[in-house]
């Protein structure tokens, strides 16, 4: 039973100009066996949180619980966690075998048992040779590709038999293709081992694909906590809305008039069930993902009318940037529906996917 809990966790780094608050009174519970992603822009405190969980940083205030125990003052190495660093930190003077065995060697496990554990972990991660591939166990890290290094780092972490995995952007050093493979692989590994996992990334797609739950962070605080579906469908604020999604969400400023939202000279229906709650003349932000538009060359009721400025090919679809009375609105259309350049089209946001923000927070 390894739940992770933080209570009012704060970490301040003293700096030339006062101090940097890397973690700001963070309270968070990560459930047993959960794959938990920490997502956020650079410098938001993800690594700091992870390092504080590992015991590499001492919090300025607040507490860390791993399992039942208060581990705030427990030294790193006595917390039963294994961490994979962004640069993997494979010891360059040791072979792959020695690297994987290192956690066991530190604990004084007998050599024979070490070897067994190494072979098991290496087999799990496809590091032992098969009929067609050569084994990597006797190589040194410098003779491995990025993907192989990443798997050795994972094997070393699993060999430690930890109750918690901490991953700091373990995929960011891989090229795009390898990254996809490693992603699937990582998810399967975590499912099999069922070890509580905290995964740091600044890539929202990675977080959505891997995590059971995601915490989106900004400036040392959690701006939203939820499943990938919740975070994607209903971002709690405009920060999360703009951060999540491979094509950024349209966030359009407007005002409420007669129960409808006036945006870029167009009258758009508010999200279902919010019409009567909206104060007249309130300033709001309408959020609509480019994927959730119906686009038509013919006039549609309650739609944006715009001219096609740019068309970007996304493969199976196209991202259009429309000029709607001077406001840019992005929509996605299927590849066979490509309009002529500068054509006039109507784009109707799906009412069940439209979001409304007031003062930056989700209101409907």
């Amino acid at each position, binding site marked *: 039973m390894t739940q992770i809990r933080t209570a009012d966790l704060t970490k301040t780094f003293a700096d030339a100009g006062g101090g940097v608050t890397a973690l700001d009174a963070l309270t968070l519970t990560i459930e047993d066996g959960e794959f938990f992603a920490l997502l956020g822009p650079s410098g938001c405190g993800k690594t700091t949180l992870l390092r504080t969980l590992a015991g*590499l940083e001492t919090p300025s205030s607040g507490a860390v619980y791993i399992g039942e125990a208060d581990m705030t003052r427990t030294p790193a*190495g006595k917390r039963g966690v294994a961490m994979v*660093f962004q*640069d993997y930190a494979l010891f360059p003077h040791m072979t792959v075998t020695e690297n994987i065995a*290192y956690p066991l060697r*530190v*604990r004084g496990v007998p050599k024979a048992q070490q070897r067994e554990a190494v072979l098991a972990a290496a087999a799990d991660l496809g590091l032992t040779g098969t009929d067609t591939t050569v084994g990597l166990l006797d190589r040194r890290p410098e003779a491995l590709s990025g993907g192989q290094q990443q798997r050795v780092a994972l094997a070393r972490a699993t060999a430690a038999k930890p109750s918690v995995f901490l991953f700091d952007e373990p995929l960011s050093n891989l090229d795009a293709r390898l990254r996809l493979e490693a992603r699937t692989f990582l998810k399967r590994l975590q499912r099999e081992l069922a070890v509580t996992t905290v995964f740091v990334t600044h890539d929202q797609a990675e977080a959505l694909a891997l995590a059971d739950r995601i915490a989106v962070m900004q400036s040392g605080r959690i701006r939203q906590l939820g499943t990938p579906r919740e975070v994607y469908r209903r971002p709690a604020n405009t920060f999360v809305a703009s951060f999540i999604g491979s094509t950024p969400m349209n966030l359009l400023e407007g005002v409420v008039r007669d129960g409808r939202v006036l945006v870029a000279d167009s009258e758009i229906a508010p999200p279902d069930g919010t019409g009567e709650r909206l104060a007249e003349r309130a300033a709001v932000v309408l959020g609509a993902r480019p994927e959730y538009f119906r686009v038509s060359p013919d006039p549609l009721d309650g739609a944006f009318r715009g001219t096609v400025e740019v068309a970007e090919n996304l493969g199976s679809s196209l991202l259009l940037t429309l000029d709607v009375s001077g406001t840019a609105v992005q929509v996605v259309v299927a590849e066979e529906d490509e309009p002529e350049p500068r054509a006039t089209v109507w784009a109707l946001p799906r009412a069940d996917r439209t979001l409304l923000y007031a003062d930056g927070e989700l209101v409907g």
Partner: protein
Amino acid sequence: MKDPTVRAVLAKIGRYTFLSVLLGFFALPMLWLASTPFNAHPTLDVSISSFTLHNFSVLLKDPYALPSLWNSLLLAGGTALLTVGFAAAAAYALSRVRIPGRNGILYALLLLSSIVTGTAAMVPLFELAFKLHLIDSRVGVILVFTGGLLPAAIFILKDFTDNMPRSYEESARVFGASPFQIMRHIVLPMIRPGLATVTVWAVVNVWSNFLIPYILIRNPDKYPASVVLYTFYTEGGQPDLALISAFSLLYSIPVVLLYLFVSHRYGFRFHGGIKR
């Protein structure tokens, strides 16, 4: 404009001329060392008029010649061991734990070390060794050498530890390694090129130093080679070229071997060490 192939040829000729001159410049003084020890009638010129190994057999019978090489080895080995061991520990601590003004202190020590190796500090060094009953003791010589070499050794090794990424140690620490395990398993192996550099440097320094053993050691049985080299005189009070040259060769061989070993093992370069 000249024909490019002509220019390339000229550049090549210029290059090889320069390299040959360079080769000559560095080789020339060493010719004497290669020829004279084998000369039956040694002079200061470079020639082997009559080949002989007689000079070496005289040396073999000399009561101080061969033992002095052993003494040098003890002094150099002992100093290198102490210097590398203590400097590595101190460099690592200084590089990883914040101590106010640590760089200033290091620079100050580096400058002070130039005084102590100088002649003006001889009397204080002698008196200090005398008070500590370290006159005529190899330990005394080793300690004095170590004191003089440590600041620069710490300086060089700190450069290596400073440039070592922190994540290796952190990774080991998260796996439960104690600070001493981290030092043994991770830090020392990773700064091995630095340790090799400092070892060679310490050995070479001690090997050729004359002044310190000369003032601290009384008993000729304990003289290192650097001191013994100055004891070869003919009965007429002239330097005995036969013995000096032969002994110079013997005396040089260990450092040459050390060089060959290190260059074979590590390529004798600075591995990202001394930089900035």
